[in-house]
């Protein structure tokens, strides 16, 4: 049953990764706003194909 130390070790390592990820996420303000992300993901991208107008915009850049 010594194998338990390996599986425990790896499991704890995984838990620690997730814990640090969680702390990182919270500190970075990932969870400051829990309302708009669910709505923002619904917005589709503004899709376009290559046109002259776009080329102009490129030149402005």
């Amino acid at each position, binding site marked *: 049953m010594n194998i338990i130390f390996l599986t425990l070790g790896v499991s704890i390592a995984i838990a620690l990764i*997730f814990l640090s990820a969680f702390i990182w*996420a919270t500190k970075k303000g990932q969870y400051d706003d829990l309302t708009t*992300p669910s709505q923002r993901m619904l917005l589709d991208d503004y899709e376009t194909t290559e046109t002259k107008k776009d080329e102009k915009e490129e030149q402005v*850049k």
Partner: protein
Amino acid sequence: MSSTIQPNAGIMDRIVYDDDIVKMFLVATIFWGAAAFVVGLLAALQLAFWPANLELEWLTFGRIRPLHTNAAIFAFGGNIIFAGIYHSTQRLLKTRNFSDFLSKFHFWGWQLIIVGALITLPLGYTMSKEYAELEWPIDIAIAVVWVVFAVNFFGTIAVRRVKHLYVAIWFYIATIVTVALLHIVNSIEIPVALFKSYPVYAGVQDALVQWWYGHNAVAFFLTTPFLGLMYYYVPKAANRPIYSYKLSVIHFWSLVFIYIWAGPHHLLNTALPDWAQTVGMVFSIMLWAPSWGGMINGLLTLRGAWHKLRTDPIIKFLAVAITFYGMSTFEGPLLSIKSVSSLAHYTDWIIGHVHGGTLGWNGFITFGIIYYMVPKLWNTKMHSERLMNWHFWIGFLGILLYYISMWASGITQGLMWQAISENGQLVYPDFVETVMRIAPLYWVRFVGGSLFLIGFLFLIYNVWVTIKHAPKKEKESYVKVSPLKADVTAIGSGHRKLEALSLVFTVILFISVLVGSVIEILPTLSIYKYLPSSEKTEPYTPLELAGRDIYIKEGCYVCHSQMIRKLPFDVLRYGPSSTIAESMYDRPFQWGSKRTGPDLARVGGKYPDMWHVRHMINPREITPRSIMPSYPWLAAKKIDYHILRKKFSVMKMLGVPYDDEEVANADINAEKEAARIYEELLSQDKSLESVKDTEIIALISYLQCLGKKSSNEGVTQ
């Protein structure tokens, strides 16, 4: 990367999403899905009607059952996960995938691995560890491709244009990190030949690592990535924000913290120490809450859109998928309770439970996503909504038939195994009697599976026509997205690149450190210091080991367990409960997970050699109603004596107490043993001349030693 970061506010970045890779993975999903379902159906048919293997060894149940599970999980499931991740991540993070080359490498590498599995599994090259059957060269390929996928994915995160990581992304991260670790730890093995290796773990240790992996394969391959997909595609398809974003975050973190500990529930009532069983059981029950958090969140996203259930087939697929997720994650903790497990374990109930999850949850959410994605990717509409509805209803009916027949079959057989009369004897001592009772249900299951496949054929036709008639793409279509705002992160591409690199480096560093420490720890783990000194176990003789590898190759473990549980009815039927010491040299362990046939842990000496020869060549000669396939090829193929020396030397290296002389003479000793068995058989039946040196001799030698290797068997009772 198609564009650079433009810090000037007000000007939009123009990017092209890489949808080609999504299309490739999507087509691969459909292609391998068909293969997985056909093979599954063939396997199901064989349980009802064994000659459906066409009497070919390559198509026999023991070999194609692993092919079915691998194809369903890693080929069908894997490809839709990758398609969904590459499609949704680009859109959620507003950037093209990190590297087109890595995406392509990922795609072709993964398909190559699947082809490798498709060839090696029917040939009998297997580790016999469930969902980790593939042999070491393919294991290495999986690790490489997975790391490539990880670099590509984390690279994409690093170059994102959106600061916030939407909850789906978190589910993908959990998947990628954990699957890498699980796969590497469970697959550490020492090669003997190109497609044969022995795991470094033995017996109970192998069992624990395997089910730690096995359960988390369900958790991190069939649950977290699909929840991630749910959190993107359900709101998109319903055009409603997720019910509670807060709940999604909470249930994500609790799920990933709890899931990893639940593995031992696959080993309840076995020789695994009780405390480990209890830990597994408790964590499994705890899992109920976060699982239902996801289910509720997914279903309630449809609030105010319930009318779409009537009209929109995509919503139908998604809603039913989430419902099945809820059912499976309720049933799972239930089955993890020791007393429920004593009834359900080794029966078809588990098969039903698994298929409720895979057909209902993974299958239906995949179909919903395919129907959502195909029109978007090919810029058209689905060819026929009617066919989508037909697919839904036929598939749904198929799942119900499958699920209900397996419930009935599992509970019936479980109760029959348990039945003890007033005078303390088994009511159904004859195993085959319990099989005959449920055999008709195998036909019902076959019909259920057929319906599911027919529904899928509708999908294939529908998607094919849709793509064929899709408008030709004339120009590359761009999307305009705003660049990451200056206040969000440090300005300047230099710093951003550095950030990207550091993330990638951290991942690689972590994996390498882990691999290093695992290699360091392993040798100490292989030693059985905790065994009682009173119980001595003999290692296998060369011929027994050869026979054992044939047992593994033919997939006998798929239908026969080698683990007598600490339960009265198990002990009455099969003998004293199995001990840890008995399997201490078993690489890999053969405890099994299903009893389509009886347990074999103490079959040694129960029947004469001649019985085994007759039974193996034609089981119905011994047991008229047996559903076991015939194995005539065992009496035709010669034993490979030559490799035994190599096998013995690897076993010795792994700590099995063979001396040098035994290793050097392994082949000669095996030949002598085989000759003894052969002559004994020949003296009883002169017509058996042809079985000399054939695999059946080695297999008999192995079967006859089962339960005989430990010195004080039964004392622990």
